[in-house]
């Protein structure tokens, strides 16, 4: 299966800009399906970015983050060709990891 994580990390001088899109339902647990039954909460709780063995960004998310979440940030200390490891875990124990190269 294709990865749930799509990432674009671009180094521009000293600063690396990271844009990430994750496929995830981010169900709040408040919405009913067509049969009128509540769809249980299912959402990413933690999303972590590591570069050169160091955490560069950690997101803690609740149910109010939109479906298929998008997040953008920038950090210093990465350069072209470095590995950027991205991993998430959700409230049901699901998880995914990908390692991208900084372009």
């Amino acid at each position, binding site marked *: 299966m294709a990865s749930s994580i799509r990432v674009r990390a671009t180094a521009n001088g000293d*600063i690396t800009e990271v844009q990430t899109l994750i496929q995830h339902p*981010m169900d*709040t647990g*408040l*919405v*009913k399906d067509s049969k009128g039954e509540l769809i249980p909460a299912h959402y990413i*709780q*933690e999303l972590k970015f590591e570069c050169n063995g*160091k*955490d*560069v*960004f*950690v*997101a*803690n*998310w*609740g*149910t*109010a*983050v*939109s*479906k298929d*979440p*998008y*997040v*953008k*940030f*920038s*950090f*210093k*200390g990465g350069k072209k060709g470095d590995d950027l490891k991205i991993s998430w875990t959700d409230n049901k124990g699901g998880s995914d990891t990908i390692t991208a190269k900084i372009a």
Partner: protein
Amino acid sequence: MTATTGSHPTRRLILQGAASVALLGLGNLPFAPARAAANDKYPEEAFKLKNEADAIKALYGRTAEPSEKVKLDAPEIAENGGVVPISVTTTLDKVTSISFLVAENPNALAASYRIPDGTLPAIANRLKMAKTSNVTAIVEADGKLYSATKEVKVTVGGCGG
């Protein structure tokens, strides 16, 4: 981090509860509450609180003061409350975390980000909004809390139904 996942869930809840009570009690001390946001653990309790002020307190153990150095960018009107693009940047130094809260959502705290040394204090993300509400960004810098708030009008709520 994974070392704790094996522990008994009830015990962990009790410990978490005790920890947050302790933090509230220590709210006046300058250094104790800062650890709440700085540690690695997912702030489960803060995400469950309905009220914005309560969530900020649970997360940071103190209140924020409005600052012009925090720039919150959000639309005036969001046609689709399910996907509201919101971003924040700040000129403050020594930023360690940034959080987003939507006051009128069922649970006010939407997202909280840890900003390690070397990461720029600028984040863009997309949040759900149940209805028209104030959106607040909290920036923790040098152990103090700063905020910016903006009202976003929502024409179609983001909670389905």
